[in-house]
Every structure is written in C-alpha cells, then in structure tokens.
C-alpha cells in the first residue's frame, strides 16, 4: 500500500469510529428517555419525551447503519444496526458518558438533555457540510430535530429554575451532576483529528463557543448560575470515547441486550 492508500485507510477507520460514536450517543440518549415513558410528570411530557426518544433512535439507526456499511467496504463483513446495538460489549461502546447518566429525577433528565442536545445541535449544524454525503444528509435531518430537543430542554430549565424553591434546587443539582461529563463532548483525539482533517467530521472544540452561548442564555433566563462542579475523568484519563463508562452503563446494556442475545441469529 502506498502512503496515500494508507492514509485513506486510516481516514476510513477514523470515519467509521466517528460515525459509530455519534450513533452510540444517540442510541443511549434515546434509551434513557425510553425508560421514562409512562412515568412523566404529566401526559404532555410522556408524549414529548417519547417524541425525542424516537427522533434520537431514528438518528442512531441511520448512523449505525452508515457505520456498518462503511466498515463493510473496508472489511467485507457487514454489521447491521442491530449487530452494532445488541452484540457489542460495554467497552466497545464509545458514547460519551453524559448520555448514559441515570434519570435520577425530572431535573436530572432535563439537565442531561439540555447539555447534550445543545451540543448535538451545534455538531449536526456543522456536519451538514461534511465531505461524506451520507453523514451530511443525516445531519441535515438531525439538526431540525435537535433544535426542538434543545428548545424543549431550555424551556423546562427556565420553568424549573424560575419556578419554586424546590424546583430550583433540583435543577441546580441536576446540572451539577451532569456538568462534570461535558468536557468529554469537546475533547479531541486521534479520531476527531483525522476526520476534521479529512472534512468528514468536525473538531469538537470548535462547537464549544456556540454551545456555551446557548447555555448562558438558558441559564440566565432560568436565573441559574453557571455550574462549577469539576470534570470527572475516567481511570487513566479515559472516558466514554475510549470505551470506559460509568458503572450505570453496564446495567443499561444488560437490560437492552438481554433478549436479543438470548436468541442468537433470530429475526424479530
């Protein structure tokens, strides 16, 4: 293989890894919201949370399918969306840890949604210009959905922040709990460097200013301070992108994958 060929292959591997982590983010974010259906504070929220879960699941399916096809071109072996969702182990998932945080209460869910959808909105807005047409297409649809998701989260942040003393305390606690996992969203690594050079992906650090601006507006409307809890890094500085997750994640996967894995090869 000549040098250009080797570079192209490295880019492809990085692109696959990149698309996979976006797919994992959406898949796990959707799963956590799916846990809440029939448990929301009011019927309208059951509808809204299910709606958001469905959008994210749709994004996850497109992204995982896309990653599987890219991989097939490289390896000749196709992994479907279900292979990727149900047959990988915990360490093979590269979603950020933020999306796997549990639904401790409604404020924790809203905080997680606010921080994640604010980020994902900027990400997909940028990815509309991806050199990869499939990814650009997925981003074009996702950005519209995320614009609603972040608006939904921002509105609730304001209601809870401005509402009662209790709701304000809970919203603060939710933000404090999720905040330590936000650095991971903007961290660069081999994968992001490679895809941003190739123009298929974006340098996540580039997304931070707009995300902070969105957040500052939401927090100020809510009368809440900027969270100050310190970042939580995983062992050896590793985190979700390296396949090192929070303890809660193993239980999430156990529940999600159990039935599928109990019937190897079955069609559903």
């Amino acid at each position, binding site marked *: 293989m000549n040098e250009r060929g080797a570079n192209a292959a490295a880019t492809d591997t990085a692109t696959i890894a990149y698309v996979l982590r976006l797919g994992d983010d959406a898949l796990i974010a959707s799963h956590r919201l799916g846990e809440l259906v029939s*448990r929301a504070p009011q019927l309208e929220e059951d509808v809204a949370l299910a709606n958001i879960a469905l959008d994210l699941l749709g994004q996850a399916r497109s992204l995982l399918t896309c990653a599987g096809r890219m991989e097939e071109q490289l390896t000749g072996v196709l992994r479907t969306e279900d292979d990727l969702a149900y047959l990988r182990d915990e360490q093979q998932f590269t979603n950020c840890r933020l999306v796997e945080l549990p639904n401790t209460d409604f404020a924790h869910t809203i905080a997680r949604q606010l921080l994640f959808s604010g980020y994902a909105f900027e990400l997909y807005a940028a990815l509309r210009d991806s050199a990869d047409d499939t990814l650009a297409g997925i981003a074009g649809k996702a950005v519209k959905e995320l614009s609603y998701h972040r608006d939904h989260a921002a509105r609730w942040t304001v209601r809870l922040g401005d509402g009662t003393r209790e709701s304000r305390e809970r919203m603060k606690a939710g933000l404090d709990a999720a905040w330590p996992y936000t650095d991971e969203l903007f961290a660069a690594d081999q994968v992001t460097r490679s895809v941003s050079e190739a123009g298929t992906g974006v340098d996540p650090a580039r997304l931070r200013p707009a995300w902070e601006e969105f957040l500052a507006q939401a927090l100020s409307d809510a009368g809440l301070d900027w969270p100050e809890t310190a970042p939580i890094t995983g062992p050896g500085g590793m985190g979700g992108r390296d396949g090192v997750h929070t303890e809660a994640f193993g239980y999430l996967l156990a529940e999600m994958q159990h039935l599928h894995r109990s019937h190897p090869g079955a069609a559903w």
Partner: protein
Amino acid sequence: MAETENGDRWRERFDAMIAAEERIEPRDHMPDDYRRTLVRQIAQHAHSEIIGMQPEGNWITRAPSLNRKAVLIAKVQDEAGHGLYLYSAAETLGVTRAELLDLLHEGRQRYSSIFNYPTVSWADVGAIGWLVDGAAITNQVPLCRCSYGPYARAMVRICKEESFHQRQGFEMLYVLARGTDAQKAMAQGAVDRWYWPSLMMFGPPDSESSHSERSMAYKIKRFSNDELRQKFVDIIAPQAEVLGLTLPDPDLRWNGERGHYDFGPIDWSEFNRVLKGEGPCNRQRLEHRRAAHAEGAWVREAARVHAAKQAARAEREKENAA
C-alpha cells in the same frame, strides 16, 4: 310554568336530535344522566389509554431490535396522545383532567381490566397489539358515530391509529410464529394468555350488563356487548389460522348455519375477580400511576408558579410602559 315549558322544549329537541342521528355538541342542553353516562365512559376510556401505556412500556428498554423498539415507542406515545384527546373530550362536559386523574388514583373510576394482566414475554407486546387493540377497535369503530360530537370526533382519530397498532401486533406475531422454536413458543404462550381476557373486554354478557340499555337509547353505544364479542371472534379466528397459532378454545369452530364462529363459555368468575381488584397487576398499575403523578407534583407546581410569575412580570411591564 314558563321554565318547565322551556325545559320540556329543550328535552324534546334533544330527543329529536338523538332520533335524527344529529350530533350533540357541548353548548347544547343535555339531560344530566346523558352527561353523567358520557363522563363516566369517556373518563374510563381515557384512563384505559394511559394505564395501557404500562404493560407495553414494560418492554421498551428490552425490545429485541431497533426497528421494533421504534415501533413500540411510537405506539405507547400514541396511547398517551389518545389519553390527551379523550381527557379533552371529557373536559367539554364540564370536568377537568386533574379531577378525573384524582378519581382514577383514588380508585373511584375504572379503567379497562385488560391492563391488569402482566406482559411476561416480548410476544405479549404482539398479542396486545393483535388482540387488545383489535378488541378495542371492534368496540370503538361504532363510537365514531356516537351521538356526542367531541367523543365521536376523538374516536375517528383514535381508531385510525388503533388499526395501525393492530396490524403491527399481527405482523410481529407473524414473524415470531415463523421464527425459532423458542419464538414460536413465545408467540403461542402470549396468545394463550391474552385470548380470553381480550374476549372479556366487551364486558359482561348482555343479560347482566347494567349500563348498556341507557347507552343504547342515547346512541352512545350501538351494539350490545355480546354482538361486539361475536364480531371480534369472527375477525380473529381466521386471522389466527393465517398466523399459524392456536386460540385456546376447544369449542371454537365455524357454524355455517349461524354464519358465525361458535366459541366456548367465558370464565366470568375470573373477569369479576380482576374487576374487583384481584387481578395480577391491579395494585401495580395503580401504584405506578400514583407514583408517577406524585413524583411529578413538584414539576407541575414549578410550571404553574413560573407561568404565574411570567404573567405578573408581563403585567408590571405593561404598567411601567403606560
């Protein structure tokens, strides 16, 4: 006396509208027992939609493929939407959603007993779609012609979605019935468990139904419980053959003379047990609802207080501007 004459006149008009198949609208005068009957039925129907989210919601996090997971979330979301339409329809009769929810949570209003059965396997999701949504449609299609306008219109929207759910359930069982031995057994087990309860969804036999007569006279109800049950059996018996699954009734067979399927006797003692609150999940379903409502109280309160603060701020701004 003038008042009585007036009263008699609106009553005559109401009866004439019912007889002429015209729609009664919220602003029309209506007899108290017509209103009461409707509130009871619409509330029970709305409660059934939202309690019904639980047995299927139980499988969202474990759905065995992403496609099935998406279909299931969309379905449970539809049921929440049905709850919303129906509570709104009830509100046109002068009750609020909050009042009706309190009555549900206090156990003073009912929901369909079918949801007091557990979903113990993934195939139960398919069986619910095919049999429970199927029975619901059979019950509800005639309600699209119900004499009360807002209820009839809500039912038109709901029935469209329910028939979608029924087809999805059927399709899911179809795939399972053609899958591995374990999947086939799962599908048959689910049908065995849900068949009889789904027949009971049409309510007690006509000879013992307490509310039917009045509802029929008011054209809220169009067919009797037994007529609807027969209609349902006639639909699902041939569908079961297509699925390749057996309905657990040794007496089920086509009767050419009647032009209907005959079916075996229903164990009404079980129906009454579940109705009395002694079904497998009565407590669990109500507890889940109460817990969600109680845990959400601070959120609803925050939204209310925020809205009030917003209004006050807008008011102040207006004054300052003036």
